[in-house]
């Protein structure tokens, strides 16, 4: 197992390098990185020349990439295009905030989806089953940003009508809150709900399908035959095995959730990775964008690895050589 993990780690290094090269080429080819800066009247010709020298923009793209890679690995991604602001401190701050949002949303989604999937599989074709199916189809069809806006409208209208603040509709915390934790929860609740809907829909479908398969298997029948109470059959025998594919799906879903976080954070003005990404893209500054994409790719690769390890851990039949 350990050998497998180490080998996977080593394997992901060339993948990341290739990823960074593709991203770098794509960002460089898509336009002159200086075009935006050149248009600003308060940036002098000398400054532009300095930028060209510092970022080695007069070299060929592979050479530029090599310089960028050196900067990224030894100098934690270096600075933005103008060279005024180091990238890493900003990225570190927003990563922490996004992690809170994503972890909370995924935990909520997983718990709810688990219950929904198990119950609708146990009562296949019941009203509850049709209800969850309809709900998940809504989840698949609803744009996250639109649902987030609707949540904002509803909560704001409640606030205007009753003058009671249940949840906040923007930012991550109030200035000088009395109770920090409560304040954070009030701020994060709506983004978490908005972000978790798609995950709930996805996971509950998988949970239902995988539960249906397990419920009809021989060992569940055996468990019933030896007189294990139905509740215990469901939880100990069926659910544990049905969980295996769902856990993997959840780990592999990380990229999608991160994409959802970009949209959610933009709507709720939450100072996380998504908002940072959109802002830097708006300014057409390629360097923070590339750093962001690299960090995101590292996360996705780590979660893919996690999915494989979890799969081996939960299902002892799977052996990694």
């Amino acid at each position, binding site marked *: 197992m350990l050998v497998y993990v180490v080998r996977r780690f080593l394997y992901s290094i060339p993948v990341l390098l290739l990823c960074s090269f593709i991203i770098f080429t794509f960002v460089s080819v898509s336009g002159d990185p200086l075009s935006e800066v050149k248009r600003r009247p308060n940036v002098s010709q000398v400054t532009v020349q300095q930028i060209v020298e510092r970022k080695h923009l007069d070299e060929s793209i592979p050479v530029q990439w090599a310089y960028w890679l050196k900067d990224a690995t030894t100098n934690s991604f270096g600075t933005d295009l103008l060279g005024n602001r180091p990238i890493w401190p900003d990225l570190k701050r927003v990563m922490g905030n996004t992690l809170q949002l994503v972890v909370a949303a995924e935990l909520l989604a997983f718990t709810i989806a688990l219950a929904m999937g198990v119950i609708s599989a146990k009562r296949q074709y019941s009203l509850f089953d049709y209800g969850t199916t309809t709900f998940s189809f809504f989840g698949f069809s609803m*744009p996250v940003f*639109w649902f987030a*806006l*609707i949540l904002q*409208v509803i909560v704001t209208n409640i606030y205007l009508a009753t003058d009671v603040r249940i949840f906040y509709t923007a930012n991550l915390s109030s200035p000088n809150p009395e109770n920090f934790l409560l304040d954070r929860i009030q701020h994060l609740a709506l983004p978490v709900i908005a972000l978790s809907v798609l995950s709930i829909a*996805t996971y509950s479908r998988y949970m239902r399908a995988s539960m249906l398969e397990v419920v009809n298997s021989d060992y569940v029948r055996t468990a019933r035959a030896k007189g294990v109470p139905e509740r215990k059959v469901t939880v100990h025998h069926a659910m544990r095995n049905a969980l295996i594919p769902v856990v993997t799906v959840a780990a592999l879903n990380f990229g999608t959730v991160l994409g959802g976080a*970009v949209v959610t954070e933009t709507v709720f003005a939450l100072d996380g990775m998504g908002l940072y990404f959109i802002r830097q893209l708006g300014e057409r500054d390629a360097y923070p964008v590339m750093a962001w994409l690299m960090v995101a790719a590292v996360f996705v690769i780590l979660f893919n690895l996690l999915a494989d390890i979890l799969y081996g851990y939960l299902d002892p039949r799977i052996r990694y050589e």
Partner: protein
Amino acid sequence: MSKPPGDPLPDTGPGGAPAEPQLQGSPSVTDDDPNTALYREGLEVKALTQWQLFRRKFFRHKAAMVALFVLVVVFTAALLAETIAPYGYEELDLANATLGPTLEDNHFFGTDKLGRDYFSRVLYGTRTSVRVALVVALLSTVIGTLIGAIAGYFGGWIENVLMRTTDLVLTLPGLAVLIAAAALLGNGSPYRVAVILALLLWTSLARIVRGSFLSLREKEFVEAAKASGASDWRIIFRHILPNALSPIIVNATLVVATAILIEATLSFLGFGITPPTPALGSLIEDGRNSMLTDWWLVTLPGLTIVLIGLCINFLGDGLRDALDPTQQVRG
């Protein structure tokens, strides 16, 4: 972008209609396989073709039929927006600004701050979304099928190169790369955005197609085709591909929904289709500032997206059930 809407494992979803009694005009048969039983009794069986079987199952799927009907209506209305819309897309009428939805003067969806008829705007926006989504579905299906077919049929280093490329595209954080690509290369044009979406949405289909080609290429009929001297491409397109069509069709249907959602998201963020080209996402972004007072500006374009998405998901569900040969003619 690994979001498979609907069931990951095929099962009869909701909408599975009650069981169909018997094949027409045949005596009641209790055997598992009606054909063998009928042969044993010396009766002639009129075998149903694949297409007939599909139609039987599909037309009985009520949810899918309703969804198909609604989709046809919405898509036709959107594509004929120029003749159907009561007003032009940019037609100003400041005297009638910010009206709520009303039947008067055909302002079904009300008007915006400049008095432009919102129903017409949503209709034109839907037209752009539908066009983009159809192009994306077509392009990504062609790319995914080709890559999956070549990888699955030829195997060896070709497969390795193609599937590692697919894995690499899957490693990229999908939506973020799309946003970056659309922001840097899109220029706000619908067709550019469509091509960018298609270039990143083919991966899951390529994997599915490769899987079915891997198993189908070992079948006897492929061997027979090879023995009679058919070329590789003929075998791929004439012999194997028709047998691998079901998941491709279902996937292409669902990609339409995914594309509409992603395009709306991009346009909402300001990196997709930009004004003056109408798009549902930018309509929502425009309406956002006054969403507390003029609820229809955000709600109605969003509901249009949800309606299209729901219909496509139900349609995909029905297609999946109807195209699955392991399911009996039941619903």
